[in-house]
């Protein structure tokens, strides 16, 4: 697998003196669906701001597709790494949804035809085409979130970072978001999800990195991390519901299986009832 982002011995201290990152080492591969998990103040957002050069490491280095972020501009790196920020209000300024999506494309110097083609394509993909002439501020919060993702996807970056996309979203919106993430990985995009919504990440992700107090306290597959109470406690997080049920009822020990979703748990219970492995 091709290495997309390489983080080596990165330290970062904010001007107020708060040490946000302490010796971070991380490899992120092309096409991977990675979760960066941690409670508030763990350093997640500080880390992702290093991926497109918004912050430069004070010690160590970050390489994006082999390019050292200290030697490249934010605009150059943003073509490879698109960050969808937590609050859509922080980026919307255009009068029309169409212009909002076209903003990045204009900045990157795309031709008029390419802009028309890409904006139309991405608005249709996110069911926003009918709102193209509306103001972004007239949209519902779910639509705003989709527009924020669409405005990044329009310029087709290889890595897409979603910062706390599930905050304030209902279950239906969350399921839609899951579908969009699947769609992105089908296009071999790297998806990095930054969240503390532990229930959302039980399905559909390849790897979880757990952060606490500016360090990585755990890293592994969802079935390893979400069953590791020690790591979750370090990060001030609670085990998700299904692993908690499986652990408390000792189901996971009896059959040595680790269900993460309702279906997996149901299958485990039914197979035990039927007495077959």
């Amino acid at each position, binding site marked *: 697998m091709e290495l997309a982002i390489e983080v080596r011995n990165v330290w970062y201290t904010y001007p107020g003196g708060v040490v946000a990152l302490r010796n971070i080492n991380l490899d992120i591969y092309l096409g991977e669906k990675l979760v960066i998990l941690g409670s508030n103040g763990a350093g997640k957002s500080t880390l992702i701001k290093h991926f497109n050069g918004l912050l430069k490491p004070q010690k160590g280095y970050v390489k994006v597709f082999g390019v050292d972020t200290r030697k490249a501009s934010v605009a150059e790196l943003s073509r490879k790494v698109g960050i969808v920020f937590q609050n859509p209000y922080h980026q919307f300024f255009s009068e029309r949804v169409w212009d909002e999506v076209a*903003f990045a494309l204009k900045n990157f110097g795309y031709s008029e035809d390419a802009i028309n083609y890409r904006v139309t394509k991405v608005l249709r993909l996110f069911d926003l085409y009918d709102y193209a002439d509306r103001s972004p501020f007239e949209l519902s919060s779910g639509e705003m979130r989709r527009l924020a993702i669409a405005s990044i996807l329009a310029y087709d970056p290889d890595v897409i970072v979603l910062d706390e996309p599930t905050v304030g979203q209902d279950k239906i919106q969350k399921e839609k978001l899951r579908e969009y993430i699947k769609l992105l990985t089908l296009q071999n995009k790297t998806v990095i999800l930054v969240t503390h919504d532990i229930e959302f990440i039980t399905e559909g992700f390849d790897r979880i990195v757990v952060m606490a107090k500016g360090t990585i306290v755990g890293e592994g597959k969802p079935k390893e991390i979400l069953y590791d109470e020690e790591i979750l406690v370090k990060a001030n997080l609670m085990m998700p519901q299904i692993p908690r049920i499986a652990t408390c009822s000792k189901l996971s020990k009896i059959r040595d299986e680790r269900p993460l979703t309702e279906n997996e748990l149901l299958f485990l219970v039914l197979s035990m009832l039927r007495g077959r492995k």
Partner: protein
Amino acid sequence: MKGLMESIYEMFIFRKEDKFLNNVDPRVKFVVLLATAVPIFLSFNPLFYVFLTILLVLQTLFLANARRIAFSLKGIVKLLIMFYVIIYVFNAYPNLLNIEIAAMAFMSIFRFFLLVYSFTLFFTTTCIDDLAQVLYKLKIPYHIAYTLVLSVRFVPTVAKDIVQIYDAQRSRGLELEKGNIFERIRKILPILIPAFIISILRVDFVAEALESRAFGSSYKRTFMVDLRIKLVDIIYAVLILIYILAIYLFLNTKAYSFVLGWF
């Protein structure tokens, strides 16, 4: 722009720290602030500014978190340089080589810097809620005092929003540092518009939050923790006032002329 906003954020944020000024009664600090800031408007003597700078630097080094204050002031240096150039060019044009105007522009900027410095020292070491209590005890109606305090309280919040907006737009390829002056001004719009919209929305949220907690239903207000002036606070204020008075007397009496003649 990011550096300036980060400085403004630090300038208006109070943190509980084990520093002398952070624990001084806010009323005392308010008096000291007035004693420092008002003479800046009244005096035109460069020596007065030098003595005042010494006073502020000594307070920063020994009584406050010097690192934070230095960071806050560092961010406005570029802004001060820009103001200096504007004042100089407007006053000196068309004769752009004029030492007198250069000195006058420097004095104006230095006075502005000293004002910012004294207010920074006050806001970084004073809890904003205590400030509301100070104003209330000065017989200012609480709803007016609270409105004043709220406007200060939201300065760092807006500064933080602007930093986040700036990051979000840079992530979409916005490059403020490229292009001529007109292009650069035009490029500020994607930062200013979301900042205005967020601020307007926030006004609505704050108003609703205040109303839902019965703000303004009573004009009499009590406070959970009452302010108390300690002896050490009074000593601090008296020393500062004596210092400022001494400078004033020194610069306005024969002693000053004598020393000047001596040199």
